C-alpha cells in the first residue's frame, strides 16, 4: 500500500513539475520537445526488461519481445531525431 501511495505521489509531483516547466518551452522548440518526450515515454522499455528478468511462458515472451522492440524503436529513434533536428537550429 505504501508503494502505491509513493507511485501516486510520484505521478502528481511529476505532472505538476512537468506542466510548470514544459509550458515555458517556446513554440520554436515544440517539435523537438514532442520527439524527445516520445523517447522518454519509452521508459516502458524498463517494464519490458523487468518482464525478461523472470521466467516467461512462450506467449508472454512473444508479447514482451514485441513490447521491447516497440520501446527500443521509440527511445533510439526519439533521442536520435531530436538531436538531429536541434543541430539544424542555427543563428547567424
Amino acid at each position, binding site marked *: 500500500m505504501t*508503494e*502505491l501511495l*509513493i507511485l501516486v505521489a*510520484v505521478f502528481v*509531483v*511529476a*505532472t505538476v*513539475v*512537468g*506542466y510548470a*516547466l*514544459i509550458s*515555458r518551452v*517556446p*513554440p*520554436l*522548440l515544440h*517539435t*523537438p*520537445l514532442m*520527439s*524527445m*518526450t*516520445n*523517447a*522518454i*515515454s*519509452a*521508459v516502458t*522499455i*524498463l*517494464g*519490458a*526488461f*523487468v*518482464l*525478461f*528478468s523472470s521466467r*516467461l511462458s512462450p506467449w*508472454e515472451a512473444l*508479447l514482451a*519481445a*514485441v*513490447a*521491447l*522492440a*516497440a520501446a*527500443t524503436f*521509440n*527511445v*533510439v*529513434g526519439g*533521442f*536520435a531525431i531530436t*538531436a538531429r*533536428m*536541434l543541430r539544424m537550429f*542555427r*543563428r*547567424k
Partner: protein
Amino acid sequence: MDLSVDLVVILVFVVGFALFRNPAGARRGNMLAAVAFAAAAIVVVARGGVVLWPLVIAVLLVAGSLAWLVAAKVSMLQIPAMVAFQNGSGGLAALLISMVELWRVGGGASIPSISALLGIAIGGVTFTGSAVAGGKLAGLLRQAPVTLRGHNIVVLVTALFLVAAGVAAVGGDAAVVAGVALLSAAGVLGILLAVRVGGADMPVMISFLNASSGLAAAFCGVVTESRLLVAGGAFVAASGTILTIVMCRAMNRSLANVLVGGTATGTGTATGGVEPPPDTWLPAAADEAAREVLAPDPAETPGAGAPGTAPPAGPPDEECPFAATAELALGAQRVVIVPGYGMALAQAQFNVVQWAEGLRQRGVEVKYAIHPVAGRMPGHMNVLLAEADASYDDLLELEDGNEHLAEADLAVVVGASDVVTPAAVETEGTPLSGMPILRVQDARRLVICNLDDEPGYSGVKNRLYEQPGVISLFGDARATFERLLKP
C-alpha cells in the same frame, strides 16, 4: 530498493525539460535525458538479470538500428508521420506489458489489475489512433476526414462496450477474455477517432495522442511498480496536454470540437452570409487532400507551368507579377514571410530561405512569421525553416509576427491560407471564426504565393486574393521561388 536511482534519473529528466528554452540548451537537455535513460536501463538489467538474453539482444539490435536508420534518413516534412508512429509504438509497448501483467494478476478489483486494464485501454486507443494518423501523414491513407453514418453513435457504443469489458474484467470472471474484448474495443475506438480528423487538424490529433501515450506508460508503471515509468509517463502526458491546449487555442476550438466535430463536417451552424454557401465547404476540404497529393507536380496544376502569363485574377500592375514582386522586395526595408504547409509540400523552404538571404545581403530586413498551427504538428514550420538554414532568431511567433507585419513594407504568404484569412476575425459563424490570424493585410503590400485561389482546409474563402493591390503568384511554391531567384 532503487529509489535513489529512480530519483536521480527523474531529476535529470526535469533538468532536461528545464533546459528546453533555446536550441543550445535543448541539445544539452536531450543529451542528458538520453544518458540518464541509458543508465537507468543498465541498472535495471544489472539488478534483475535477463532470461532469454539472445532474444533480448537480437531485438535491441534490430529495432535499435532500424530506428537509428530512420532517424538519420527521415526528412523534416515527414517528421509528423514519424512522431505519430512513435506515439503509436509507445502505446503498443505500454499495452503489451500491461497485458502480460494482467495475465499474471488474473483480473479482480485490485489496483494492479485496474491499472493494467487502463494501460491496455489507453495504449490500445493510442496505438491504432496513431497508426491511422501516421498513415494519413505519410500519405499511405487518404487524408480527407472520413465520417461514418452515425459516427458519434458508433463512437459512443464502442466506448460503452470498452467500459463494460473493463467492468467485467474487474469483476474477475474470465479476466483474460474481458481483457481481449477491452483491447479490441480500444483499437476500434482509436481508429474511429483518427479517421475523421484530417489535414490541418492533425497538430491537435498528434498532440492528443502524445499525451495519451504518456498516460498509458504511467498506468503501465503502476502495474510494474516502477516509479521511473510513472514519472516518465506523467511528464509526457503533461507535455502532450500542454501542446494540445496550445494547438486548440491557436484555432479557437475545443478538443471535443476537433475530435468529434471535424472541420469539414461541423459546419452546420455556419451561416455567414458573406461567405460561400456551406455546400461548397465540404468539397473544398476534400479537394485539398487531392491537391496536397498533386501539389509538388506543377504540371498537374493549371497556371503553375505558365510563368510569365499573368494569372486570371492578376495584379493591377500591367507588368509581370514576378518582376513586380522582385521590385517591391528590393525597394522594401522590412519584409515578413508567412509560410504554410503548402511551402513544405512543395519543398520550397530551401528556395524561400535562399531568396530571403539574397534580400538580406542587399540590406532588406527579412523575418518569418509562424502561426502555431501552420504545418502538421506543433512547431513544424520552425523545423522546416531551420532545415533550410534560416536563422532561428528570425522565426517569429504569432504576436511578435503581427507586430512586425504592422510595420512591414511587404508581406509574402507562401502556401498558407487559413492562418491569414481575414474572415477569421471579420465574419461570425465560419469554421475559422475567432481563430487568431497573422494579419498580413496590415503590411503595406502583400504578395501571395499559393497553388491557386481556392480556400484552405477550412473551406472558408480568403478575400485577400481579390483585394486591390495584392499580387498573386499562383502555382507550385517551389517553381514560383525558382523563378523569383532568377536574375
